[in-house]
């Protein structure tokens, strides 16, 4: 047992040891983690990003037009998740979804003892909170709980930001997954097999790289409404190539190393050579690219949304918010909010990326004597 008291890695590892001895972290990984932790900027960025992700995962509890709890005539209701509750349930005269903000006002005006607990930001990303005679966008106001104001159709900017962030991050993460799986598989195969296969895919990738990706998105968007998965498909189709070059070179390099030759001599199958020997030894290449791929996934989605070729309205999206902001410079809270949010998130992701790269940098452990 190498576990050091107070070390997160140590504790995690000891837990892992007990659960599955095979997952014991090797000393190199521990070194890398410690190295990562010692880069404060990256470490805190990772924590900040983690918190943001956690909060956005539970955004329905924080930013939502549905109440957290309603106490009505002695019964308790939790409308946040699940089916909508029609207004009639609470003695209102309509069948559509209850307007909980109004319900709250009504309950507090009456003395029946009913109450409503709203989330801190009592708006969702779709509803238009409009007043007749006053024209949106509305400026930020604590009284109306539009902490960052509203957009041009009276939708809360905080809600659009939070749900937009969640969507963009999910998108970027799935995109990353798909790109890496395809990119690593093909890249490794190219490096491992070489020859005709390598040549063929080099040409395929060159061709794909020369197709102007944005035009394809524009053409697709003009013919169909690009949904989440169509956009994903198009972006994966052009995005997987990025990883292949790195994996190809690493594989070429690793393939000629002695340990791979040894494995081959012992009769390991190609699959085993690649999966068990080569890939684990190129992991630093892969890990280093993760944060930057996330960042580029988020920016790509924002950019195509900004241009109007992205997710269909009224999906909450940073790009759409940004384009509203540039069209309504006289309402600086729209553009300002999204720019600040975007800069923060991308900075954090980049810091994490830097730290990861540095932590995984093999030169760290090379000494010339």
């Amino acid at each position, binding site marked *: 047992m190498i576990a050091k008291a107070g070390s997160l890695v140590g504790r995690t590892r000891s837990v892992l040891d007990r659960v599955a001895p095979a997952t014991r972290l090797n000393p190199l990984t521990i070194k890398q983690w410690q190295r990562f932790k010692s880069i404060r900027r990256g470490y805190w960025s990772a924590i900040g990003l983690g918190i943001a992700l956690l909060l956005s995962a539970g955004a329905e509890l924080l930013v939502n037009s549905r109440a957290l709890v309603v106490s009505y005539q002695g019964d308790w209701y939790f409308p946040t998740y699940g089916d909508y509750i*029609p207004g009639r349930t609470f003695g209102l005269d309509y069948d559509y979804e209850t307007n909980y903000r109004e319900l709250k006002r009504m309950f507090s005006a009456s003395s029946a003892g009913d109450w409503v607990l709203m989330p801190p930001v009592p708006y969702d990303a779709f509803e238009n909170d409009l007043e007749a005679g006053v*024209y949106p966008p509305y400026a930020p106001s604590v009284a109306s709980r539009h902490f960052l104001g509203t957009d041009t159709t009276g939708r809360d900017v905080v809600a659009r930001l939070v749900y937009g962030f969640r969507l963009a991050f999910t998108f970027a993460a799935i995109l990353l997954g798909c790109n890496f799986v395809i990119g690593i598989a093909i890249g490794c195969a190219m490096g491992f097999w070489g020859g005709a296969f390598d040549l063929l895919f080099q040409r395929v990738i060159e061709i794909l790289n020369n197709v102007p990706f944005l035009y394809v998105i524009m053409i697709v968007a003009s013919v169909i409404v690009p949904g989440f998965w169509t956009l994903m498909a198009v972006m994966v189709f052009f995005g997987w190539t990025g990883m292949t070059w790195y994996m190809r070179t690493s594989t070429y390099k690793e393939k000629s190393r002695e340990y791979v030759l040894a494995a081959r001599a012992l009769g390991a199958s190609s699959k085993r050579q690649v999966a068990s020997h080569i890939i684990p030894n190129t992991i630093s290449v892969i890990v280093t690219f993760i944060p930057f791929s996330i960042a580029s996934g988020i920016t790509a989605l924002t950019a195509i949304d900004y241009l109007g070729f992205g997710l269909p309205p009224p999906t909450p999206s940073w790009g759409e918010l940004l384009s509203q902001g540039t069209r309504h410079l006289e309402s600086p809270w729209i553009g300002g909010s999204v720019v600040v949010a975007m800069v923060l998130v991308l900075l954090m992701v980049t810091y994490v990326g830097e730290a990861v790269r540095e932590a995984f940098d093999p030169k760290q452990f090379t000494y010339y004597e």
Partner: protein
Amino acid sequence: MARTSMVYRGIAIMGLGALAACQGEVDEAQSEAASRVAVLPPIEVAEGDGLPDELPAGLVWETNDTDPTFASPDAKRGGTFRTSMLSFPLTIRRVGPDSNGSFAGPLRYNQLGPVTYHPNTRRPIPSLATHWAYGPDGRSLYYRLNPKARWSDGVPVTADDYIFAVKFMRSKQIVAPWYNNYYTERIRDVKRYDDHTIGIQGADPKPLHEMHYQYAFGPVPKHFHEPRMTEDWVQATNWEIEPNTGPYQISKVDKGKTIEMSRKADWWANDERYLRHRFNPDKIRYRVIRELNVAYQHFVKGELDTFGLVLPLYWHEKARGPEYDAGYIAKYWFYNDLPVPSAGMYLNTENPILADARVRFGLAHAMNFDRVIETVLRGDYDRMPTFQLGFGDYDNRLITVREFDIDKANAYFDDAGYSERGGDGIRVRDGQRLSLRVTYGAPHHTERLVILREEARKAGVELELQLLDGSSSFKTMQEKKHEIAWMSWASQGLSPRYWEHFHSANAGKPQTNNLANHANPEMDDLIMSFRASSDLEERIALAHRLEQMVHDAGVVIPTFQVPYTREGAWRWVKLPEWLGTRTTGALFNPHRLSAGIFSSGGLFWIDEAEKERTLEAMDEGMAFEPLAVMNIDYRAD
């Protein structure tokens, strides 16, 4: 294709001449061919067409010298009207490549047709012709040209210019396929009866009072073009100032920068009843300012005399400040009564959900247009009550819109079987959600649609927004792949059109304008009688019935209309007391015909004395009363 190849050939010939002088012989032969004046072939008349050689007996010559005039006798001639254009024209030719650009309007409005329509009464009034008559075949027109009419170079306008016009428009030299086709397919014959009497024959019979709109055309100056009808007519006439018959003629072209037009002092029509006291500025200076916002800044500085302020952003946000408060710049809001674009939600009845009329009615009652108008549209737009509007007596004013009413919508949807609601509050029938896709092509309409969408959820119907780019959204609709088409048809002319939008001949097949795929035999009959009838009373009655049927079928949910123009003008630009006419589309357009046919432009004038007073007051910092005028004389309600 033909157009481009011709242009390129022309350019190639010029280029060869300049670069390779040593190839002299070949080039000379070519350029000689290019510069050889062609004799235009005589007008070919297809079998079954053709005007009689003598004027038909019993023609009833009509004129109009009794309708009220609409220009102000107080108007003063003089001054320069300074306005802007977004780009410099690529040519000042009237037809041919690149001629349909930014400057086409000012050029064409100064080429008069035989008649125009009165902007208030909508009846034909004399223009180049003094009298007109309708032929017994129902598709020909006879005109007596005004003997006073002159081209700007002093040559009289005669029947020969009409004969030439058709030859010219059919010729290949002008490289204008649309005109070639129009003057062959729609205009079937033209005849000269004497120097000032002509006949024109169109393709199909039309209601009498609409025939001028359908078939009348303006003459082309034979003496000017005939010697120029060479292979390279297009190049040769790019910057040639063609004689015209209107009040203004180009007097100066500063390429890339400005075009100046000057008023003809002795214009032949100065004292004609409907043209007197109009077209008052001595000069009109069109200056290129490539950005709207920059042009607005020029206007506020007093370098342009007027500026269009229809857009809410300009009217509400930008058009404020000291120049307005001190009354130097006036703001005009003028309601007009022009054909309104048919903006609506077209419900595709081939869709199983929308095939049920109860769903269509419920949907109409679930659309909260008023909320959209009150909020994002800043109260600027009006609700469109009917499918077609702005055709005077043809309008059916008895129809009222299906108002936003959740109870009514609920009742219709319940009745149609969508009585259950799913977990998300959207109605369901036998597992089918009441969810409909709205196809549209204008990104700035998204903000209108998201509000409608959120409000419609209350009635348990979901709108799925499908924003495509402009041309592919139209393509989707033309292929009838839409569920709900959110779009708008341009409106022109004197009477509404039903055949293309509602006749069963256009239902259920692609590339037609029947976006609802509406088919109703009773309506077909009415539409055919409407098309065949040339009796005004009958046509109006039929139009009212048809509009009612459209409403009763509920296949179109009319959306918005903008029944006005809004403009800003410096204090010295004066308008008649009544500002404009019923059909005025733009108050400060110096020559415009509105809706393509109504003679409504050129009513304003520049008051030089007032200009001096205003400039002095500005120097001394003196203020006038702010000027903000709203005119609702022609507002519909």
